[in-house]
């Protein structure tokens, strides 16, 4: 059931239709690029702007650090392929590990390219893998 306030643990990134497992953080950025359209006719000394393009991306931190996941991510990076990426509010039902998409009215998705993959390896700790998917086309 959808909650009024969305808690961070219930805001999950989905890649290829599945919630990204074991991540500790995700960040969604939606940005519009503006062009100054101010003219001599503009009133009151205020700038006027118009949207020239839009972009979006989803970053996921501390994904499952297994060898299989890392291999899959590198293969995806090398392939330049577009994958369905998005987010949804999740709910916990038995055996789903908080990975069930639960708020279709809130969720958004689109095609995106894995364009940033970082691996951080500190001494005596599990490696940390983060990745960013840059949207290609509409977020709907």
């Amino acid at each position, binding site marked *: 059931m959808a909650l009024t306030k969305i808690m961070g643990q219930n805001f999950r990134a*989905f890649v290829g*239709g*599945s*919630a990204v497992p074991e991540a500790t953080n995700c960040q969604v950025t939606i940005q519009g690029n503006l062009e100054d359209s101010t003219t001599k006719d503009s009133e009151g000394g205020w700038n006027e702007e118009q949207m020239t393009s839009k972009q979006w991306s989803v970053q996921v931190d501390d994904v499952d650090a297994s060898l299989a996941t890392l291999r899959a991510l590198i293969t995806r990076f090398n392939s330049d392929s*577009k994958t*369905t990426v*998005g987010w*949804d509010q999740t709910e916990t*039902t*038995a*055996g*789903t590990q908080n*990975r*069930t*998409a*639960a708020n*279709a*009215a809130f*969720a*958004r*998705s*689109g*095609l995106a390219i894995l364009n940033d993959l970082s691996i951080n390896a500190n001494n005596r700790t599990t490696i940390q893998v983060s990745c960013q998917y840059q949207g*290609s*086309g*509409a*977020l*709907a």
Partner: protein
Amino acid sequence: MSKTKDETPILAFEVGKPIKVEAATREEVAEKLKALRNDAEGLNAQGGFIEYDGGEKFSAVIKFVK
């Protein structure tokens, strides 16, 4: 949801088998998912994320398990 004489629900899907839902809008897919969830009362849902293919189609795969 139809029921037999012994009130056992007849589901339009198989428990444990993924069901793919497709439509032209996110809202239509959401409605179909909602209907499936209603039919599957008492079962646990898995998946259900609505994917946009970048064109004119939205889809989701949902599975119900006991």
